[in-house]
């Protein structure tokens, strides 16, 4: 007899199965409609062009689980077992349907291969599920939650696979085909049924159980975290697509705050908690975590846009259901430092920081839930063009007796424009950064000038808290100056200005007619220093016998992938011993000043983020903690004092360190 399988063996009233299948698919589609009807309420921020990179990411991340393996091999392996098991069984079902309805090809050796493969993937699924249960309930991996859904989803999957094997086992026990050993798992099960007669009588019941469980699973998918099966591939594909800017002018008051892309990202979240593990705010004991935000935002969107919302009792029910489990209030979004650590570890690229920025924009527009000190900072930012309440006169005072050419005193920019930035110009500690950098540029004979008193804020501060109207105004001011003085080459003190020029301006520029667009190159000072070292303009001859460590600013490292340049400069100095902190490079910990936290009041926390970071620096045994951002410099300098490390650890900006290595203070006689 040729190996093959009889579909609906011993099953009567097969039409009932089709009816139930139609019902399950109907429920599934309805669930899908619910999600899509929320998505279409989102702002359309981008076109969706075809992208090979998107496709390849889809395979690498979606099928091979690249991001899931990253940093957690156990979770990656567990997930791939479940994923491939699930996909394999799904393909198996598709193939048997093709075999039954279109053309019969599952016979002979093809069937044997088919059957054996299904055994393998079915076992993979079950092993993966058991492993996931162990991780969540026995090993109790800290980042995992234990909600009802977390249990029902895996148990249902497990029941489907198990009942499948049992049904198969009984069939093999009754039919006893000679190829049964190839269906090895089913074959083992069949050995349990020693009486074929009895087995045969319970077979139809168990078949229906398996059928109902499988159809139930299909119907359940859109209503539980399994929906990531559909949403995650979309979010992975969309991840690399450039965002279109939505100027304030074009927004209407009734617009949803999130783009549809944000919404798809939110739907792709499985609450795996990797973001919770890396969030510096959560780590400092603050009542915030990216996951809580995502769940809150997702529930709110459903409450607002559910297609059945016009039915009063349903609306009441859904509001009641979600409000009950609400562990998050809107004000908590002010905790996020926008450090990007969550996005870096998220397997499905949920850009929590973008969504938070959008949500902040709504709160800023309403005005009533902005923290008092931040309200004050934003008012100052508008009035003075900087958050430090400093008049224009004060902006150029950092240079002291250093003679710095002022572009606004000439017709056009010659060479490099040094964009000093608000904090670096005004804060007494951060001014050292600017003075040191200017000394280095003079020493290396790099011609440069600044915008002097005319320098505006780049708009970063407004952008981070969603004060988009102010951001756009400040951006226009900057662009206007760049045009007037023909500035095409910019170097910044702050990674924040660098990021805003590099990553925020272009999307807005792209909306303008080509002749009005401004092209400029922007570098962070660390990049320029590295170039000067590489070209030989900066030569370190005097050895500095000192142990140092380097703190990666979030907006330089994670946001812009500049990890090596500062390290190259440090290690170019003879005698310097570089020690890495426990968290370094892409894994760096935020100093706590980002996302405009530096201009807010201190929020509830067990310990300050900056103190956690300074302790890590202390643990390396380094004598100097070097950083490359004025905000990090201020935060860490403060933390050094509050933790009593004043005698053992110095905090320096990279420029100050280079000035020390070159002994420039002595050589130039300038302070």
């Amino acid at each position, binding site marked *: 007899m040729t190996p093959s399988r009889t579909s609906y063996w011993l099953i009567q009233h097969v039409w009932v199965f089709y009816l139930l299948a139609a019902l399950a698919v109907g429920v599934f589609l309805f669930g899908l409609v619910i999600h899509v009807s929320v998505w279409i309420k989102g702002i359309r921020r981008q076109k969706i062009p075809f992208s090979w990179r998107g496709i390849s990411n889809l395979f690498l991340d979606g099928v091979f689980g690249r991001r899931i393996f990253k940093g957690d091999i156990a979770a990656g392996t567990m997930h791939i077992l479940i994923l491939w098991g699930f996909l394999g069984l799904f393909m198996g079902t598709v193939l048997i349907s093709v075999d039954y309805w279109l053309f019969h090809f599952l016979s002979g050796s093809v069937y044997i291969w088919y059957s054996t493969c299904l055994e393998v993937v079915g076992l993979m699924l079950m092993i993966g599920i058991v492993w996931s249960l162990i991780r969540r309930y026995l090993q109790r991996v800290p980042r995992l939650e234990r909600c009802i859904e977390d249990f029902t989803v895996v148990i249902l999957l497990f029941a489907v696979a198990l009942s499948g094997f049992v049904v198969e086992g009984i069939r093999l026990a009754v039919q006893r085909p000679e190829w049964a050993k190839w269906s090895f798992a089913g074959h083992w099960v069949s050995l349990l049924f020693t009486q074929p007669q009895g087995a045969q009588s319970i077979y139809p019941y168990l078949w229906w159980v398996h059928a109902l469980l499988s159809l139930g699973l299909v119907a359940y998918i859109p209503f539980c975290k399994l929906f990531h099966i559909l949403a995650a591939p979309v979010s992975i594909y969309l991840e690399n697509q450039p965002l279109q800017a939505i100027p*304030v002018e074009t927004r209407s008051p009734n617009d949803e705050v999130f783009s549809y892309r944000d919404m798809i990202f939110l739907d792709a979240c499985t609450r795996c908690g990797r973001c919770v593990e890396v969030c510096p705010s959560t780590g400092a004991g603050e009542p915030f975590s990216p996951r809580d935000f995502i769940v809150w935002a997702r529930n709110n969107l459903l409450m607002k846009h559910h297609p059945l919302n016009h039915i009063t009792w349903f609306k009441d029910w859904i509001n009641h259901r979600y409000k009950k489990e609400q562990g998050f209030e809107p004000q908590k979004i002010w905790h996020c430092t926008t450090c990007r650590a969550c996005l870096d570890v998220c397997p499905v690229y949920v850009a929590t920081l973008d969504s938070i920025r959008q949500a902040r924009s709504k709160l800023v527009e309403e005005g009533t839930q902005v923290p008092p000190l931040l309200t004050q900072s934003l008012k100052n930012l508008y009035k003075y063009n900087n958050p430090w309440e400093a008049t224009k006169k004060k902006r150029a005072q950092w240079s002291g007796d250093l003679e710095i050419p002022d572009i606004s005193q000439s017709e056009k920019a010659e060479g490099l424009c040094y964009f000093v930035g608000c904090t670096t110009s005004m804060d007494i500690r951060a001014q050292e950064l600017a003075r040191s950098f200017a000394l280095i540029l003079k020493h290396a004979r790099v011609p440069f000038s600044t915008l002097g008193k005319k320098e505006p804020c780049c708009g970063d501060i407004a952008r981070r808290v969603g004060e988009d109207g102010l951001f756009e105004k400040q951006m226009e001011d900057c662009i206007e100056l760049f045009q007037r003085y023909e500035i095409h080459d910019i170097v910044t003190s702050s990674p924040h200005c660098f990021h805003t020029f590099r990553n925020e301006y272009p999307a807005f520029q792209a909306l303008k007619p080509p002749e009005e667009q401004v092209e400029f190159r922007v570098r962070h000072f660390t990049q320029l220093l590295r170039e000067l070292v590489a070209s030989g303009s900066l030569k370190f001859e005097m050895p500095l016998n000192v142990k140092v460590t380097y703190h990666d600013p979030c907006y330089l490292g994670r946001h812009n992938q500049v990890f090596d340049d500062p390290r190259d400069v440090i290690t170019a100095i003879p005698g310097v011993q570089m020690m890495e902190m426990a968290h370094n490079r892409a894994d760096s910990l935020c100093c706590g000043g980002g996302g405009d936290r530096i201009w807010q009041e201190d929020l509830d926390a067990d310990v300050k983020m900056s103190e956690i970071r300074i302790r890590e620096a202390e643990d390396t045994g380094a004598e100097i903690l070097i950083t490359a951002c004025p905000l990090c410099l201020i935060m860490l300098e403060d933390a050094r004092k509050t933790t009593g490390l004043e005698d053992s650890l110095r905090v320096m900006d990279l420029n100050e360190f280079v000035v020390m290595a070159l002994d420039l203070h002595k050589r130039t006689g300038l302070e």
Partner: protein
Amino acid sequence: MNIVVCVRQVPEVTDAELEINKEGTEILREDLEMDINEWDNYAVEEAVRIKEAHGGKLTVITLGDEDSEDVLRTSLAMGADEAILINEEGFELSDAAGIAQGIYRAVRDLSFDLLLTGVQCSDDGWAQVGLILAEFLGLPYASLVVGIEINEGTMTVRRELESNTEEKLQIPMPAVLTIQTGINSPRYVSIMGIQKVRKIEIRETNSGELGLSEEEIGLKGSSVASQKLSLPPVGEGAEILEGSLDEICEKTAQIVRDKGVI
């Protein structure tokens, strides 16, 4: 429940280096940033909250030049429904009664249950305009208000007195209250918020329309005249402490003790 709030644009002086003109009559305002008077900001916020809770219309009114439109826009963005600008530069040298007279002419025909002003303006610091205005209107008033509770046709208000004491009093409506800072925390007004109200038309009027003669405006219409403005002389008593860190700390502590601070 209709509310009128009087607001004023004032220069921001916290961090500015003030200069006075040669005649000593006024502060040079060119380099100064202008903003809504702080007390008025609290008054607008309080009015918006009352409106949100009890309904009604909120009108803001200012007396000043064209640039004063900014404070009206800010107030509209906070939640005011209508704005009136008395566009008249002649009030620069008016005293409190003169300013109150100007506002009185504009508000006497409005129908309202509550009129709020700030306790005072940060520039002239009269702290009288609201109260004189109430007298002109013949309405009951309370000053230094730090809490308002609206009941049927009447209000319970709390006034801030000295040494952390408060007075609670009942006052019928309509009434005039001058609002003290700290009564609430004023909302943030975003550029987006201001853009949203840019289409609301501001009603403009002037002294002619209000029937104010030249004799009633400015110096002529005032019984109090400013003679001369001057900056406070640089005081003595600044002392630079010298020595090691510990010595400086010890000296500082001693001075604090001697002055009776602790």
